[in-house]
């Protein structure tokens, strides 16, 4: 049995691999690939840490936290790699897409063909709602910096302290 932290690191590494795979599929510029790999790892670390029973956040909070981390990290990284932030953030959040919930929703809808029990309906509705809210959480998280800073372009954002707070 692996300790929790080792499993989180393993899963985060594979999230990075998934992110880079989709980045290649979306024809992302090669100079952004390393940043996307690191972004995928960051997303995995956040998601699976929040999901730990000790932390106790649900899957929706975990996805939102991971996506927000990607959203904030993509701003300085987009300066560094000279690409717009969406090019980094969208492939990096792809591993968060609730594939298994979406899959179970689809299978549930198909099974309505020959099953009439109420449990099938409630289970499918639950899976569909989870899919919807997780994707909503991901897109809210990714756009959070834009919504918070009320900005036209990330070129004007830097995370250094305002002038009046710096020591003379």
């Amino acid at each position: 049995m692996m300790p929790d932290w080792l499993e989180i690191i393993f899963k985060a590494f594979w999230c990075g691999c998934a992110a880079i795979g989709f980045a290649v599929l979306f024809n992302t510029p090669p100079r952004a690939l390393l940043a996307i790999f690191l972004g995928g790892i960051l997303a995995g670390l956040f998601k699976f840490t929040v999901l730990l029973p000790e932390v106790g956040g649900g899957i929706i909070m975990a996805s939102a936290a991971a996506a927000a981390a990607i959203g904030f990290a993509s701003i300085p990284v987009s300066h560094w790699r000279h690409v717009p932030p969406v090019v980094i953030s969208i492939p990096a959040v792809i591993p968060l897409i609730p594939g298994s919930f979406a899959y179970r929703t689809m299978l549930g809808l198909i099974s309505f063909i020959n099953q009439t029990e109420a449990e099938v309906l409630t289970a499918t509705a639950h899976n569909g709602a989870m899919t919807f809210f997780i994707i909503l959480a991901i897109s809210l998280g990714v756009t959070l910096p834009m919504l918070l800073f009320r900005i036209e372009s990330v070129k004007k954002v830097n995370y250094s302290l305002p002038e009046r707070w710096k020591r003379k």
Partner: protein
Amino acid sequence: MSNEKSDEPARLGNLLLQTGVALIKSGAGSSRVIKNLSRFANAYGYEANVDLATRNISISLHKEKRGNIFSGSRSIASLPGANFRVISVISRLSWDVMEKKISLEEYANVINQVPDIPTYKRNVILFFTGIAGSAFCYTFGGNVMEMVLTFLATVIGLFFKQELVIKKYNPFMVTFGSAMLASAVIAISSKVLGVETNLEHAFATSILFLIPGVLLINSFVDLLDGHIINGIDRGTNALMHAFSIAAGLATVLYIFKML
């Protein structure tokens, strides 16, 4: 010289239309398209008013206090895909235009080269997407054998998808066919390996390369930005893809009597 000055709005307008079409086709969100086009227009001293949907775009240009000096529209033949290299080239270009004040000719040069922007080699795309498939399989809790099968199914399904895209089939038929083939690979291997092997994770993840992730995220981003019609449009498009995947999967499960 005076002649060149007077047709500037028309040239700029046509370039903006070309830029907008390229951005929409590459999977940029509505706000990003409008922001980029306004940046270009402002750099040359105009104000651009943009009206866009998934398959058409119209732009009218104004110069302060004078009336409408250009209006034009384009329809787009294909549904949007994802090509982030185009988005970053155009974003960079918009900053060059704004900060370095490059001329309309240089702008036109870069935009005309957009269709020739290279993609990754086909086997590289197949390999990395296969890796992504098996990575998903691991995070869903699959074992090593399921990861290998998912890799195989993803590569075969994506190869088939690329072939169909080259032959210009309807995009939803492409998704349906590739979902069918990818899940058939898993179904056949589960028959070969015997009934006691449970390949549920492999089934769930072998079709994930078809999930329209860019469309889904862009749909919600558009809705949050207040581009409601475009958001619903993209969301419906993504749902149609999801149902195509479900239909492909259902066909295979029905044929192999696993439903």
